[in-house]
């Protein structure tokens, strides 16, 4: 009797139908088991109901041959109505099931290897339990087919029989403890010492930008820490009990749950190994989304995977998805007795092993023939793996990470400049690669060094029992796979295809980006009221507060006094720089304190007569053009600076409004060394802009801001068109992340840093 006949008029509930295996299974049932009805539990997602998602699924290419002209069904809806019943629901809260089910295939599950511990238990253990309870409620002897994983064997070695995993871990205790971790870790993260730690780290980076920016970063750090801890806890618990990670651990405990119910329901447990793209059905090379090996294959093809901590002779148990689906169908038709659950290993290792070295050779051969076309530099150089063993790869990686850390420290301390930014960008690329390596090595090194062999006698027996052309339709004997053909002709082409398409787009986009990089779009006059806010020091002209202070004070001093003043500033420099990194406000106050006793009128006069030319000479031509462009477009131009008011005098004609630090004066017009209000830095600038916008009806989303330093991050974030001008490394990174415009406004090379107006300048 063929499978189609055996499963005729059966109603099969499939969970996880939108997943990789579920989708392939649905495809096979519709195509090859014409008498079988599918019931799918689908979780509503966003505004889409389960039914919508099913409709979406059926619109995919692989389902198209099933409806339309020349088929029984006019369209997807007709097909769906005839063969599929959709139940909206979630496994965390399984809905009531139809009373006429014959078979349940549970292939939903968390497939990531490093889920947070509570999520792993929810889906793999508790979800399974509540599904089974619902099945029992139907009161029928439903055949329950549980899709597990071959790696429930954990860190065991050698031949693994198709039998229950041998362990004594109590799943109830573990589930309870695991679920409790969520609140425990959450609570821990909110303790004063932890919060203080997060805040200190955040402030180190963001204090200059302001308290709120630092606070936002603190909270981000906390949630990140919680997530990381939950994953770590899961992995460590799994390893402490002999499993590779939380995924296989909870999957193994899930099997225990299933086994407990095997007295009430006839139960089959299917344990596939690493499921990859299809050999034949739906079509050769078919794969959905990225599975385990794909990121590594792609990274290798891009030349970014220098080495991998695998044993060259360890067997990598890859199986094509259609074999898994074939086996599941055969299992559905093979109902075991009550209390005698059957186990099926779907792997390739025992009869047609693929070693890691062969896998590597296949992938390498593929990319040698079909390299990625990444840019104008020709094919990528493919790394040659020497398989030095896990430890030395780990050492290599650790060395790389440490080197990166040191380089990063240096790059954030050295003076900014075009070259610094270039290095920073290269470092960021390096960092991304290191993170990728770290993540995948941690996840997969266990698997790549595994020495297991999954016995698959039961599956082979299933395959051999298939009758007639079922042997073709539901083939599940992996011995037939020619791995080199599979890798080079099916799998690699299939997984790289989308990447290649994306590369073409990316190449085009990068080219466009490179052409427009550093070129600002012309300002268009707009209906709305728009402002253009500019920072001064470092943005419009290369200068800093210490320098400008010296410009202002030196002209009125004589020789020895000048030397004294410069000496005093030099002595204080380390302290000042430290203060500047911490809090710009305090830093400004320290400098401005030194204005005590200066005559404000005289300062104005010095600026007008001596400094104006110096300031104007150092103005960046591009900056002035941009300001004037804004004015011409009818925008309101605003200069927001922490510099003292007199210094902005030469720029007055360019701006509609200038917000600067006001030196407080006594009744004789002499500076007291204090400011008449707090200096406008960091978040105060953003606050000022927002308030100003509210008052004068300005549309900030259409407005512009130009600044150079990390402390201006809040101001830049408040407007719709932020521009980072010759930014420091932190702002550069933030700007790149947010895809802001980055321009380099150079101070003319003709001006000299060492020339002091009124002192040694012409």
């Amino acid at each position, binding site marked *: 009797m063929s499978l189609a006949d055996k499963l005729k008029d059966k109603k099969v509930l499939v969970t996880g139908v939108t997943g990789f295996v579920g989708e392939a299974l649905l495809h096979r049932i519709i195509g090859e088991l014409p008498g079988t009805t599918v019931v799918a539990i689908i979780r509503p997602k966003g505004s889409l109901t389960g039914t919508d998602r099913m409709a979406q699924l059926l619109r995919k290419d692989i389902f198209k041959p099933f409806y339309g002209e020349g088929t029984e069904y006019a369209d997807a809806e007709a097909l769906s109505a005839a063969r599929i019943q959709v139940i909206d629901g979630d496994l965390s809260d399984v809905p009531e099931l139809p009373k006429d089910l014959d078979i349940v295939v549970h292939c939903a599950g968390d497939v990531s290897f490093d889920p947070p511990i509570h999520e792993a238990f929810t889906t793999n253990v508790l979800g399974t339990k509540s599904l089974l309870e619902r099945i029992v409620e139907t009161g029928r002897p439903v055949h329950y087919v549980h899709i597990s994983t071959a790696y429930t064997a954990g860190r065991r070695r050698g031949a693994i029989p198709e039998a229950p995993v041998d362990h004594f871990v109590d799943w109830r205790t573990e589930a309870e403890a695991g679920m409790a971790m969520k609140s425990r870790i959450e609570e821990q993260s909110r303790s004063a010492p932890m919060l203080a730690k997060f805040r200190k780290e955040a402030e180190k980076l963001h204090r200059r930008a302001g308290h709120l920016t630092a606070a936002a970063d603190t909270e981000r750090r906390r949630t990140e820490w919680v997530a990381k801890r939950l994953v770590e806890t899961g992995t460590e618990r799994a390893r402490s009990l002999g499993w590779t990670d939380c995924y296989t651990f909870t999957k193994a405990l899930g099997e225990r749950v299933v086994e407990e119910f095997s007295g009430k329901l006839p139960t089959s447990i299917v344990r596939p190994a690493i499921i990859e793209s299809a050999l034949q059905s739906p079509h050769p090379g078919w794969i959905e989304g990225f599975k385990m090996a794909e990121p590594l294959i792609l990274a290798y093809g891009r030349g970014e995977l220098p080495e991998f901590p695998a044993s060259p002779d360890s067997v990598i148990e890859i199986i094509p998805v259609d074999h898994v689906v074939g086996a599941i169908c055969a299992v559905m038709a093979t109902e075991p007795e009550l209390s005698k659950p059957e186990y099926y290993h779907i792997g390739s290792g025992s009869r047609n092993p693929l070693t890691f070295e062969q896998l590597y050779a296949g992938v390498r051969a593929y990319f040698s023939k079909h390299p990625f076309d990444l840019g104008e530099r020709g094919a990528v150089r493919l790394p040659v793996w020497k398989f030095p063993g896990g430890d030395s790869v780990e050492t290599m990686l650790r060395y790389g990470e440490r080197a990166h850390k040191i380089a990063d420290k240096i790059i954030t301390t050295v003076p900014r400049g075009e070259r610094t930014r270039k290095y920073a960008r290269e470092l960021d690329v390096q960092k991304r690669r290191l993170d990728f390596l770290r993540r995948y090595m941690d996840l997969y090194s266990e698997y790549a060094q595994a020495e297991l062999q999954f016995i698959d006698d039961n599956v082979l027996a299933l395959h051999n029992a298939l009758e007639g052309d079922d042997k073709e339709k539901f083939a599940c004997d992996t011995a037939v796979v020619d791995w080199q053909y599979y890798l080079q002709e099916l799998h690699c082409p299939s997984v790289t295809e989308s990447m290649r398409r994306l590369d073409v787009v990316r190449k085009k986009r990068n080219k466009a980006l490179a052409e427009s990089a550093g070129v600002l779009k012309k300002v268009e006059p707009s209906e709305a009221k728009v402002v253009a806010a500019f920072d001064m020091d470092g943005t419009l002209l290369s200068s800093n507060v210490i320098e400008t202070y010296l410009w202002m004070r030196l002209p009125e001093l004589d020789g020895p006094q000048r030397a004294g003043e410069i000496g005093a500033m030099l002595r204080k420099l380390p302290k000042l720089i430290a203060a500047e990194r911490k809090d710009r406000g305090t830093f400004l106050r320290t400098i401005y304190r030194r204005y005590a006793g200066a005559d404000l009128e005289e300062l104005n006069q010095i600026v007008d007569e001596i400094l*104006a*030319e110096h300031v*104007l*000479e*150092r*103005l*960046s*031509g*591009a900056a*002035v*053009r941009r300001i*004037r462009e804004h004015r011409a477009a009818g925008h309101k131009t605003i200069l927001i600076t922490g510099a003292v008011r007199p210094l902005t005098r*030469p720029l007055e*004609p*360019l701006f509609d409004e200038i917000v600067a630090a006001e030196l407080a004066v006594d009744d004789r017009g002499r500076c007291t060394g204090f400011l008449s209000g707090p200096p406008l830095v960091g978040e105060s600038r953003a606050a000022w802009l927002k308030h100003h916008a509210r008052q004068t009806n300005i549309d900030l989303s259409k407005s512009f801001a130009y600044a150079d330093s990390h402390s201006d991050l809040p101001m830049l974030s408040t407007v719709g068109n932020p521009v980072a001008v010759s930014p420091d490394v932190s702002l550069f990174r933030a700007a790149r992340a947010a895809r802001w415009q980055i321009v380099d406004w150079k101070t*003319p*090379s*003709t*001006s*000299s840093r060492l020339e002091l107006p009124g002192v040694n300048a*012409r």
Partner: protein
Amino acid sequence: MSRPGFVLEVDDRTPPLLVHNGEGFLLERFPQGTRVVYPPEALPPVRDVDEAIQNALLNPIESEPLPELLRPGMRLTIAFDDISLPLPPMKKPDIRQRVIEAVLELAAQAGVDDVELISANALHRRLTPNELREIVGERVFRSFFPDGKLYNFDAEDRDNLTHLGQTRHGEDVEISKRAAESDLLVYVNVNLVAMDGGHKSTSIGLASYKSLKHHHNSHTMIHSRSFMDHKASKMHHSAWRMGEVLTSHVKVFQIETTLNNDIFGGPIEFLQKREWEWSIKDQASMLGTKRALAAAPAKVRHKIFTDVRSNYGLTGINAGSIEPVHEKTIEAVHRQHLVEVQGQSDVAIMGVPFVGPYNVNSVMNPILAACMGLGYYFNSYRGNPVVRKDGAVILYHPVDYEFSQLHHPSYVDFFEEVLSESTDPATIEAKFEKQYAEDPWYIHLYRTSYAYHGVHPFYMWYWISHALDHCGDIVWVGANRKTVERMGFRSASTLQDALEMVSHSVGRSPSITYLHNPPHLLADVR
């Protein structure tokens, strides 16, 4: 007696010849048969400068002697040429200082106490106090500057301009109010090249944009052939017409001085000697200078060149009525600069030096470099251009992307915004000139800072319109490709490449003329 200028024909015995190349120089081997035009050697200067000045003031041409024009209670204004002359700047004492001191002496003797001194900078940048001091000398500076009696002309100071009327061609004559209302205007000129002086002094030096735009425009400039020959220059014709209007309102006492070609002295004297006559000492200093310049950072190199001051000997001084005085002046200038050249050639080669009229104490930006080469040197002819119609011009200059934001703010914008749209003078004039001329920011900088007027880069571009119109190919040797390309020219790495590039229009063996200046020369092309 000094030797006259001459034309050398390059043969196999000719050593490599010196070519000016911005802040530096090269020794170049020219193809055999190249004609090299050498300026006359420096004329002997007058023996007693003070005596010559006295003589000119007391025995003027077609005018009463100066003392007779001076009387107590009168308004006397002394205008003088600004820092754009002479080039390079003159060693102290500046000739203008000596003339002004003599004039002031006579004025004091006559009991004149309402005296003002104006730097006739038209739309040029204001001079800094130090620069004014260098021109008029410490004594005059101290007596006049603190009281505001020595100042820069401000062409945008509406309240201090006077419209004197229109010429018969309808051109507005608007000049400094003080000058217009003076009982006597004494103009102290330095006539470095044939273009300067005459009616150009007052009618242009003290005029406003309204007045200047009648002759500083692409149409007039293209028809000024050349600027160095006022009788064939449309721009000068206009200035002369304005001069007629001006002199009918104001009594002008013109003092014109002419200088000789003694430009490079001391260790760089070899720059004005003929290469095959270089002594051991000259060769040593040439090598030393070359090496030092190559090793020096750009800023040091710039400083070295900015600090160059020239000896200059006075070859003549004439005073009195503008036109007859200018006749005499031109005679003297021609004596010093004129070189007879037989016929035009297919290719003209010129080395653009480190300084032009508008980058004294500043940097020569790409536009100024173009103007220096194609405006000034190209126009250094009388009769016909050195290069034939549709011939090629090859220039030497690095043409770095370098602008002084203080002195040339509108130049940067002109380069970025205007030249990126068009390089055609007439198009540029029609589309952009008004906007730049009336821009309040440029006007602000012109009036209060040390910036050239917003419209000034346009004038530079009009200066070269005759060359653009006349020449087929313009190629720069060793120049920054990007900047040169923006200006619509091409760049070659070597002279050989440049000749290769122009060969499609002038052939494989073109006739070549190399203008070996500075020192200045005026090619009299027959």
